């Protein structure tokens, strides 16, 4: 709470300071938003029938002065489902731009890779709760406090990222979502966050008309692993973020009538290279192939095939305690996104669907969005989950919801 109040004060200060600094080119914008998501099935674990209900004001300050630029984007928000004040600094950074390099320091959103809600090289924090609770797309990503250095020599572009402190992905809250818990009786739980820095490098350039990129990352898994103090009679569970390094590549280019995207990464599980620790994810290979095209005017179709392959499956099986669900060695997922625009692109009907062919995990997200005016838009949609009780989506099968987002922009 104290942090939140601090951010709010800092934001207001920045905004006032920026406004006072009228000599530079200063731009203030933002929005007012209402966002509600109601369960269509039963109640949440906490007894409520809504996944989300909040009002939100975003203020964005953008000031530039030659090579320097400042950006602060802060939200004042109130949650009606028990969380209360949810104000936060979404982004806040300073940019310095020189001829062949630039620097960004502060809280920033980073996105790597080519996937559509499928993440191969995008190792940066997400907000899965936002995705499953019907919040606008921009809330899918969480900013990290980092320094990013861009260097642009002739032969390639480089992006170095260094984050002194770790920020996890936000997983759905167990009060609001029915999450799979293999040891529900153990209530003594603690979370240990890494206290080391993380870093990454992205190198990209054009190769024969293809956008090619190379990615390297050394840090931690973004979602926690759990370790009980004893398997026979557990009394305490510790959540922790295992060390991770990833090495990946991607390419996208024009093929036929559309755009083909290819991406691969090796997830090197540094805390358990042998794969024999059941609490730490096995090393993994991730592959993605996507194709997007426009069969007719204002209609776009995107297909993806995504695979995860466990490197040390024998060791995984040998180490897995009895009673826990057994993952398959290979997990195959297909996704489709269809988007049709109407009324001079002011009305958008879209559907995203994902299906795991191994465990039949399914996720559907239809949405209708309309811009009433140039300043006011609204969206209604649904999140529908199905599959096995321990699957990524299957565990949420009692959490289906319909949502409304309405926003006034200024």
């Amino acid at each position, binding site marked *: 709470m104290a942090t939140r109040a601090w951010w709010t004060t800092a934001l207001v200060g920045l905004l006032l300071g920026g406004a006072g600094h009228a000599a530079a080119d200063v731009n203030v914008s933002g929005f007012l938003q209402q966002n509600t998501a109601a369960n269509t099935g039963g109640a949440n674990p906490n007894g409520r029938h809504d996944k989300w209900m909040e009002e939100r004001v975003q203020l964005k300050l953008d000031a530039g002065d030659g090579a320097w630029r400042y950006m602060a984007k802060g939200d004042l928000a109130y949650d009606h489902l028990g969380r209360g004040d949810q104000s936060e600094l979404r982004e806040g950074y300073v940019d310095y731009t020189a001829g062949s390099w630039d620097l960004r320091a502060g809280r920033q959103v980073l996105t790597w890779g080519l996937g559509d809600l499928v993440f191969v090289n995008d190792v940066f924090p997400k907000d899965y709760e936002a995705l499953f609770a019907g919040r606008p797309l921009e809330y899918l990503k969480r900013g990290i406090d980092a320094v990013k250095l861009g260097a642009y020599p002739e032969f390639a572009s480089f992006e170095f990222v260094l984050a002194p402190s770790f920020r996890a992905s936000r997983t759905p809250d167990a009060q609001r979502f029915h999450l799979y818990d293999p040891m529900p009786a153990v209530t003594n739980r603690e979370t240990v966050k890494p206290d080391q820095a993380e870093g990454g490098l992205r190198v990209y350039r054009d190769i024969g008309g293809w956008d090619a990129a190379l990615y390297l990352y050394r840090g931690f898994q973004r979602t926690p692993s759990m370790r009980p103090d004893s398997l026979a009679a557990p009394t305490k569970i510790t959540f922790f973020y295992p060390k991770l390094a990833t090495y990946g590549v991607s390419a996208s280019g*024009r093929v036929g009538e559309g755009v083909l995207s290819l991406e691969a990464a090796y997830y090197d599980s540094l805390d358990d290279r042998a794969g024999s620790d059941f609490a730490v994810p096995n090393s993994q290979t991730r592959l993605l192939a996507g194709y997007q095209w426009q069969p007719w005017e204002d209609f776009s179709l995107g297909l993806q095939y995504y695979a995860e392959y466990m490197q040390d499956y024998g060791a995984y099986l040998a180490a897995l305690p009895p009673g826990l669900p057994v993952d398959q060695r290979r997990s195959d997922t297909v996704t489709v996104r269809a988007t049709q625009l109407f009324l001079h*692109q002011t009305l958008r009907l879209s559907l995203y669907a994902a299906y795991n062919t191994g465990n039949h995990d399914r996720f559907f997200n239809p949405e209708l969005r309309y*811009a009433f005016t140039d300043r006011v838009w609204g969206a209604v949609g649904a999140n529908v989950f199905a599959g096995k009780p321990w699957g990524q989506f299957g565990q949420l099968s009692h959490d289906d919801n319909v949502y409304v987002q309405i926003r006034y922009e200024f």
Partner: protein
Amino acid sequence: MKRVLIALLAGLLPLTALALSGEEVMKKSQAAFLYPGKDFKARVVMKLVTKDGQERVREMTMLRKNIGEAGGEQKYFMYFFQPADVKDMTFMTYKYPAKDDDRWMFIPAINMVKRIAAQDKRSSFVGSDFTYEDVSGRDIEDDAHTIEREDKVGGADCYVVKSTPKAGDADFGYKLTWVSKANFLPLKEEQYDRKGAQYKLFTADEIKDVKGFPTVMRRTMKNVQTGHHTEVSYTKADYDLGLEDSLFSERFLRQPPRKWIE
């Protein structure tokens, strides 16, 4: 001997001018309309107006750089100011003659640069009555061009060129373009559907000299079948600013330089 030849050629000149083919007129028109200068920058205000007069406004800065001669490769960069939900979005096109464009967009909400499919040049540009082709041009070779007649538009002498798609899969039957004899700008264009009914009308509403290049500062595209129309005006326009090639890159899609977009 040389002098005689020059005199002969000079004598032939008016004849050759008269004998411009439809294709030559359209090539000159493309050069005057879409290729003037080495590069170009404009602040563009686009008003989408329904039959009932309801307006939506899209505002952007458009940058263009020619890579070769008129009719050759070009690079486009667009930065959106309005509407608010697309503010800070940028859009980049590498346009190639006789080959599909390469297009990228930057989505600020998730800080992601995406290459996007671009085979459909006949689709609407940001929901307006202009298509991508109307904005950045249609390949001259895709149509057969004949001069139908001569006519006047607002007192200006024009060639009226009929352009008929060579391939059968085009979504329009033909178009008539009124090309000014003086500056080769298209002053009016009528597009007809495949049944021969007119469905779109383009008019150049205001022309101004900018750095010596006659420039269409205001234009309208009307869908005569639905009554919807789009008015485009350049509130600022300039040529030969020395735009660097490196501007048209992922780096600047993500961080558009203020000095070029303001």
